[in-house]
């Protein structure tokens, strides 16, 4: 039977949220296509993760367990993944567009000689042609393109975190089929090894996975005014982002930069404070779910993509929002 696969990325024995988001979306594609939904889990001692994959709709879990899968190493992981694809022949393979997925997917597609579409924001299945319709923004989000792979299999796509909603199956967990796949990596050389991991900054810099982001731009006027952004971020439980102009001016670390030359993000909530909305910034944030813009210029391009626009002096508006959120919580 044909299958849709989701790469069940784990780090340090914990599943990445994007894998569960892809399973949630995968259920919809499975229903439309009649294909089975399977998760592929490469891990070391990862048996505890299978039930979670079933809970999000995987009907089958291929589990490859090996000490070499303790952390992502491109040579071993891509070799094991590609071997399994060749053996089982899935129709569709979905991979989260994380720093891991964006190494694995292009390597695998190159080996398999199949099509790969990056950063899809919409996935659909056409029952007539039996093709996966992969829609992604192009040219900085100015146009949308739907991509298909008619002749090669599997049809591979990556999707960024937070693009699809993570929804567990309703009702009691029912389990699924667990397939333990033997791992044979003999003869695959180890050409790279990880020596050290350094976590930087606080939680407020992991923009790719943040559910909410408050970003500051040149409209802040001075680096000190990032305190306004941080305060609003703090009450909203958000990470702190920044425009290229503020990073270039040295107001804040490049780790915070959102935009085409920074990070592309798609949180549930994006608040742009004093950001006018240059194309290169919009390209990095316009697929966010709900966008709020605060700017003194009512004609700023940022308002074209904002669900909610607040026009005026950010020095007054931001504290007013902080107060309103606190008041609501207190009520």
């Amino acid at each position: 039977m044909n299958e849709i696969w989701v790469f069940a990325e784990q780090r340090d024995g914990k599943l990445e949220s994007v894998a569960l988001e892809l399973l949630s979306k995968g259920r919809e594609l499975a229903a439309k296509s009649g294909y089975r939904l399977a998760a592929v889990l490469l891990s070391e001692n990862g048996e505890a993760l299978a039930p979670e994959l079933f809970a999000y709709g995987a009907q089958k879990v291929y589990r490859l367990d090996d000490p070499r899968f303790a952390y992502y190493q491109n040579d071993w992981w891509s070799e094991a993944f590609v071997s399994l694809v060749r053996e089982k022949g899935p129709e569709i393979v979905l991979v989260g567009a994380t720093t891991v997925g964006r190494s694995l997917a292009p390597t695998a597609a190159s080996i398999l000689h199949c099509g790969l579409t990056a950063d899809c924001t919409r996935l659909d299945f056409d029952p007539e042609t039996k093709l996966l319709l992969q829609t992604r923004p192009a040219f900085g989000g100015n146009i949308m393109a739907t991509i298909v792979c008619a002749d090669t299999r599997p049809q591979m796509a990556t999707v960024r975190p937070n693009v699809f909603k993570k929804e567990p199956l309703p009702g009691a967990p029912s389990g699924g089929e667990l397939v333990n796949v033997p791992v044979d990596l003999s003869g695959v050389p180890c050409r790279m090894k990880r020596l050290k991991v350094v976590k930087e900054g606080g939680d407020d810099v992991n923009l790719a996975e943040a559910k909410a982001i408050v970003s500051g731009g040149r409209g802040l006027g001075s680096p000190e005014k990032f305190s306004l952004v941080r305060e609003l971020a703090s009450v909203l439980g958000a990470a702190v982002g920044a425009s290229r102009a503020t990073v270039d001016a040295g107001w804040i670390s490049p780790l915070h930069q959102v935009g085409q030359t920074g990070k592309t993000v798609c949180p549930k909530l994006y608040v742009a404070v004093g950001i006018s909305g240059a194309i290169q910034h919009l390209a990095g944030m316009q697929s966010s779910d709900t966008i709020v813009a605060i700017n003194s210029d009512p004609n700023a391009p940022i308002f074209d993509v904002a669900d909610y626009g607040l026009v005026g002096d950010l020095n007054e508006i931001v504290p007013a929002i902080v107060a309103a959120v606190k008041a609501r919580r207190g009520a």
Partner: protein
Amino acid sequence: MKIAVCIKQVPDSDKVTIDRTTNRLNRAGVPAIVNPFDENALEMALKLKDANPGTTVTVVTMGPPPAAEVIKTAVAHGADGGVLICGREFGGADTWATGYTIALAIRKLQEDGGPFDLVLFGKQATDGDTAQVGPGIANNLGLPCLTYAKSCEVAGGDAFRVVRMTEDGTEEWEVQRPCALTVVKEAGELRIASLRGKMKAKSYQPPVWGVEELQPNPDFIGLKGSPTRVSKVFAPPVKSNREKFSGTPAEQAAALVERLAARQLV
């Protein structure tokens, strides 16, 4: 040491506009630039060249004849030379076909001048944003590939010490020579072109290689060799319920928080 840097000519995305009737890029009048991340990759190569005398840096690009400009630019900034892959047959290539084609050119460079120790790419190009071609070329060349590298140093005779960026910090890796890296902005801004470099670039004409020189499998190049097809292009959906509030800061804030609460965002 021998380093290859793959670079791409892209439209300056700060200046691009879209024709809304055709949903095509208005290319006319838009300046073409070196993909910003490829500049960072070139800078990484030039830093290694500074630290390791005798190193040569060769740039490789694929595109129409005007793309020769990016090679000349690279030479002005300190690259030793380059090659342009050009030909109608390569047109319409997706990331798979592009990876295959550029790998052929790197192989040919190696046949002529000896193996590369390092092949560098920008982490992605700003026109396509796929981040797929670098790992694809690496695979075609059989090289180990690390993505999102911010620094690279020679570690002993046969390895590089590489620091790469992840979602929440950095990792330090040791990777065997030869290898391939995709490079992030944190590798550093491209140095200013020297007067001597500019003079050299002025008269430099890169060799142009087509199907004749590369002898590709015709089924693997251009549109024909591309597994992906664009089936539809359309304008991004405009958010229909956009609201711009008015009133005092407190009134606007209250209205916003009410909407956010309705969407369960506060």
